[in-house]
């Protein structure tokens, strides 16, 4: 079984990180001051678990990779986000406990909080950017793993991001299980939480949103649902640190939470009808963050720079000084954090300049902007084959890149990596629309969000109209103009006709 060999590698990595370290005994609650949620209260066992090097590692992985090159405040990390998710998850569980005291017990709250603290433990350096590199390299392995039976459940890991799969495998790894059991035993706490009964497998299942019994669905929904604590925290946190003026009325939403109570339905998280416009607000915030932050052209340029460095590392495989940079195993992606990436790559022969350029924000600039308005209507159809999901580079993109490069490389004397075609993925709200249920009253029939509002359709329309792909090139304007002309011809050869707007949006012109 593939899963056994993957588990073995994860166990080795986790064991190396934890080593002989034992969880500490913590005398009392700790309180952390957080800019988003103010005071976050942590139980002794949670502090002991946070002390584990696996969790401390998240302090060195920024939530949004290199977005701080564009939004200078965006230095926040996966660590503080994990604390925030634990806080929001507890608020959600607490709001439910008032209505369902027999189901939402202190033990359930403790499990949910623990899952929240651990949910991002599988993130690699540069968060989702690193994850796309991992997917490019090991996508087949994880696609096959998703189709396997894991822990007795067929296709348990299907439909998950690779970081989520890694989180599951890390939490259920032998060495971490041992650490967790010791942490719980040493820190029973003053409240009657029955901590000793918390199993790492159950916590891990909450992290990936897959429960054994549909009566427990709401617990997983709090951590990995369509309106979970993860989303609420990262929307609030990303807005705060980017400075973008968007609001998520988390308190209002949390206070409308209920558990589906219709016969034959899963006990899923639901909201009362009054929460509709708060859900809309959250989904709009998601789209706003995509267009303003995650897919900002300069953020994409930083990602292009990292991809270039990654390609160079692959070309030098077998000769690198820092072995994890060879990415010979998928666990090598976990061995590196954001800072190490800069330091280690900077120590590799011939890569210092590239790293220095990135660190000093010398980024590629736009030569063309490809969007719905700048690709001529009849040929927009041909554009389809370029704009495929980002984890792999379509062959059509390679052809156009080569076509542009062939016509401008010699006169400009530039490196092949100075030219990048960038096609970001499109955000969607389909899952939220289909899998968030509204139940107006206890007796009312639950309705999917999409039955009340065509959220998926209007958010898709919004996303499609805001979509921007780019041709990036060196900063000199005359060269960018030449690249724009070459790109227009190369796209024309692929039967994609661009309008003058493609150059106008890139702020270059004849």
């Amino acid at each position: 079984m593939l899963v056994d060999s993957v588990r073995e590698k994860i166990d080795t990595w986790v064991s190396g990180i934890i080593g002989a370290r034992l969880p500490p005994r913590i005398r009392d609650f700790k309180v952390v001051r957080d800019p988003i949620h103010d005071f976050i209260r942590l139980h002794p066992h949670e502090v002991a678990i946070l002390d584990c090097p696996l969790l401390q590692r998240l302090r060195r992985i920024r939530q949004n990779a290199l977005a701080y090159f564009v939004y200078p405040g965006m230095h926040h990390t996966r660590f503080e986000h994990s604390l925030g998710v634990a806080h929001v998850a507890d608020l959600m569980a607490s709001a439910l406990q008032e209505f369902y005291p027999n189901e939402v017990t202190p033990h359930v709250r403790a499990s949910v909080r623990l899952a929240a603290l651990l949910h991002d433990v599988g993130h690699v350096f540069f968060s989702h950017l690193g994850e796309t590199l991992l997917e490019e390299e090991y996508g087949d392995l994880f696609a096959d793993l998703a189709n396997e039976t894991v822990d007795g459940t067929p296709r348990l890991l299907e439909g998950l991001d690779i970081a989520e799969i890694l989180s599951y495998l890390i939490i259920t790894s032998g060495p971490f299980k041992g650490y967790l059991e010791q942490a719980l035993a040493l820190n029973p706490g003053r409240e009657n939480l029955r901590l000793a009964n918390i199993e790492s497998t159950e916590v891990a299942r909450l992290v990936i949103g897959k429960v054994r019994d549909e009566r427990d669905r709401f617990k997983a929904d709090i951590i990995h649902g369509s309106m979970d604590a993860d989303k609420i925290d990262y929307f609030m946190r990303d807005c705060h640190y980017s400075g973008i003026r968007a609001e998520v009325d988390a308190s209002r939403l949390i206070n409308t939470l209920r558990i589906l109570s219709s016969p034959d339905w899963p006990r899923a998280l639901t909201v009362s009808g009054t929460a509709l416009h708060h859900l809309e607000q959250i989904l709009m915030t998601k789209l706003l963050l995509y267009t303003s932050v995650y897919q900002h052209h300069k953020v994409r340029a930083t990602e292009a720079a990292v991809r270039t460095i990654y390609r160079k590392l692959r070309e030098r495989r077998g000769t690198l000084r820092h072995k994890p940079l060879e990415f010979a195993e998928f666990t090598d992606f976990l061995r590196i954090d954001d800072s190490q990436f800069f330091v280690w790559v900077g120590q590799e022969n011939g890569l210092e300049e590239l790293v220095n350029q990135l660190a000093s924000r010398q980024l590629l600039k736009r030569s063309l902007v490809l969007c719905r308005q700048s690709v001529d209507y009849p040929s927009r159809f041909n554009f389809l084959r370029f704009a495929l999901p980002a984890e792999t580079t379509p062959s059509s993109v390679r052809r156009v890149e080569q076509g542009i490069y062939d016509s401008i490389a010699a006169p400009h004397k530039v490196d092949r990596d100075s030219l990048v075609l960038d096609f970001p993925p499109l955000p969607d709200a389909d899952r939220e629309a289909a899998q968030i249920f509204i139940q107006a009253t206890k007796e009312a029939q639950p309705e999917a969000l999409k039955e009340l509002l065509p959220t998926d359709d209007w958010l898709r329309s919004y996303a499609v109209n805001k979509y921007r792909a780019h041709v990036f090139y060196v900063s000199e304007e005359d060269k960018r103009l030449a690249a724009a002309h070459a790109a227009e011809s190369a796209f024309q050869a692929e039967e994609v006709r661009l309008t003058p707007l493609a150059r106008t949006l890139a702020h270059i012109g004849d």
Partner: protein
Amino acid sequence: MITAGETTRAEKTFAFLSLLVAYLPEDHYTADASKWATAISDLRIMYEAVYPHLFRWLHFRHMPRADSYSPEVSNFLSFLQFADATAVHNPGFMTMEFGPNTRQVLRERFERSFSSEDIGAIKEMSGKMVSKLGVSPKNGVSLSS
């Protein structure tokens, strides 16, 4: 490293979804994205044992009593809309309409990516999928206008 001529996972998935659409008999459907995902997920249950390579990179998230979600299907439908290959009208009446040449163009473009055996199977799958997509009467708005 991917070379210029190599077909990637995303391209294979896109080609398969494109042909499923290409062999549909009509242009107008009431299904929204999650109904599409559900219909294709049902096809996987029926055909995966014989044609695992067609479904290898398609993933779904299921929830009892809810329609399925597939990131790959979502992306596919979004990019069709980007290209004006589809339009979405009043969802109470008609959700999705393919452009006048969409199915033909998809067929011409992607048939060569598959063996004749695969094509036969995909045609059969399209036929089975139709009833789940809800063929809609054409409304007053047309992509060709």
